[in-house]
């Protein structure tokens, strides 16, 4: 039985009796992973931007996620766990989304020519969404990998060192642009794709969504660049002490217990 099913599928007749339900699931999963990733990205941005408040604030958030305030001790492995989840989501999302990309040069030129001719905003935005998504394959990879393998290297000095002395800042500029554009466009597209917030006047809703989308993108880019600048500044200042972790002033009297 099993082998005959396999043969039927092998010949390409599996879908003739009843269409597979997988495309429905995949469509949902693509949107779902995108939504979770976009929301994660926003939260992530808020967390790292606490550096703009103070080094201590950023340190506190970091330790919070390492469980320090629950267990009285840091478990960076918890971060690795989160990162592993994000990587999984990224891989699944990328795997599904890549189906929509132009798969050959002919499709690429057709779409590009079409976009140039139409000058239609949502069509053009898709091109950028696809392009930034493609870029994320590469620029997100080093970041998530280092977070997975060195979760303890998060902190005001640790991050500052990575950004500056570790030469991550060019990568982070690209990553920031790609993530914010991709996520912002993606969330807008999710809203129209699934007709969220349609209300009685879908046209007005869409207009508002578009405005909101651009406002959020600008906001997060501004926040992101300010945050990056803050880490760069810290990184330059901390360069001579590269590698030394940050310890809040309040804890410097009793440094034992932290980072053990």
């Amino acid at each position, binding site marked *: 039985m099993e082998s005959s099913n396999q043969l039927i599928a092998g010949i390409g007749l599996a879908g003739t009796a*009843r269409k*597979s*339900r997988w495309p*429905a699931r995949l469509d949902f999963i693509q949107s779902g992973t995108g939504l979770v990733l976009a929301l994660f990205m926003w939260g992530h941005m808020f967390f790292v931007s606490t550096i703009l408040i103070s080094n201590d604030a950023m340190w506190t958030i970091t330790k919070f996620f390492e469980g320090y305030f629950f267990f009285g001790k840091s478990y960076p492995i918890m971060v690795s766990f989160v990162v592993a989840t994000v990587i999984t989501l990224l891989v699944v999302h990328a795997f599904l989304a890549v*189906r929509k990309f132009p798969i050959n040069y002919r499709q690429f030129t057709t779409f590009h020519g079409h976009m140039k001719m139409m000058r*239609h905003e949502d069509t053009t935005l898709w091109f950028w969404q696809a392009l930034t998504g493609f870029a994320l394959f590469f620029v997100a990879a080093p970041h998530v990998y280092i977070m997975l393998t060195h979760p303890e290297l998060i902190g005001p000095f640790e991050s500052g060192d990575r950004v500056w002395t570790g030469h991550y800042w060019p990568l982070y500029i690209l990553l920031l642009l790609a993530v914010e554009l991709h996520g912002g466009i993606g969330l807008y597209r999710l809203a129209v794709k*699934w007709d969220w917030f349609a209300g009685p006047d879908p046209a007005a809703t869409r207009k508002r969504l578009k405005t909101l989308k651009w406002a959020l993108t600008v906001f997060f880019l501004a926040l992101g660049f300010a945050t990056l600048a803050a880490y760069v500044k810290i990184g330059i200042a901390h360069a001579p002490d590269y590698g030394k972790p940050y310890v809040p002033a309040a804890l410097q009297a009793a440094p034992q217990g932290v980072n053990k």
Partner: protein
Amino acid sequence: MSDANSKIIPIAKAGNGGDGGSAAHRQLKISVLRYNPQEPSQPPRMQTYPLEEADGMTLFIALNEIREKQDPSLQFDFVCRAGICGSCAMVINGRPTLACRTLTKSLGAEFTLAPLPFFELIGDLSVNTGKWMRGMSERLGGWLHMKEPNPDLRRAEQKMDPDLADKIYELDRCVECGCCVAACGTARMRKDFVGAVGLNRVARFRLDPRDARTDDDYYEVIGDDDGVFGCMSLLACHDVCPKDLPLATQIAFVRRKMVSLGWS
């Protein structure tokens, strides 16, 4: 409003190519993308026709004047010339729309006309939308599948909620002009994509209680990447639809219904 004299004003804007009005008319330069697949030796090229604008001139009038006075070989399609049959869709300054109801005064003095992409080109501005639409309809089962194939015609018709009838008509207003498909980036890349026109058809029959089909049946025809899951929500279909059909909400609705079958 009921002052009759004030009524003289709108007609001054009206008209259809007459020679009335002595005000200086613009000299239009109309660039047309020309190519006849039957004469492949002549590559695609732009040809520019000068034309004096007239009051209330539509592209229907302009193109016919060009064909009669300047170039008898120019191919294009018009039928109703009143914006209701969907024959004359073409790309005007980069956007697909109905030519017959496009007034030249709504365009600059120089503008470009091109055939709808995606569809088989017959020649110049004429494309074979009908052939594709028929194929789409055959593929989707784009007709009402009757629950009772031989109703007794002497008996009163089945009742239907008046609002539901209006809703169905709203989706039935599609004129199959092809603008939505020509404007669709997905369809341009993947020629088997069913397009907004097809998904709208499904939404229409789904809505109709007289149709015998269930969501499972519709899933069989649009439950893949050539169907509703292929749609990338670029929404150009919605934005160019000359009949202002609610394509964005309808496609989203169909998508939700079809996705919900993924776990049933």
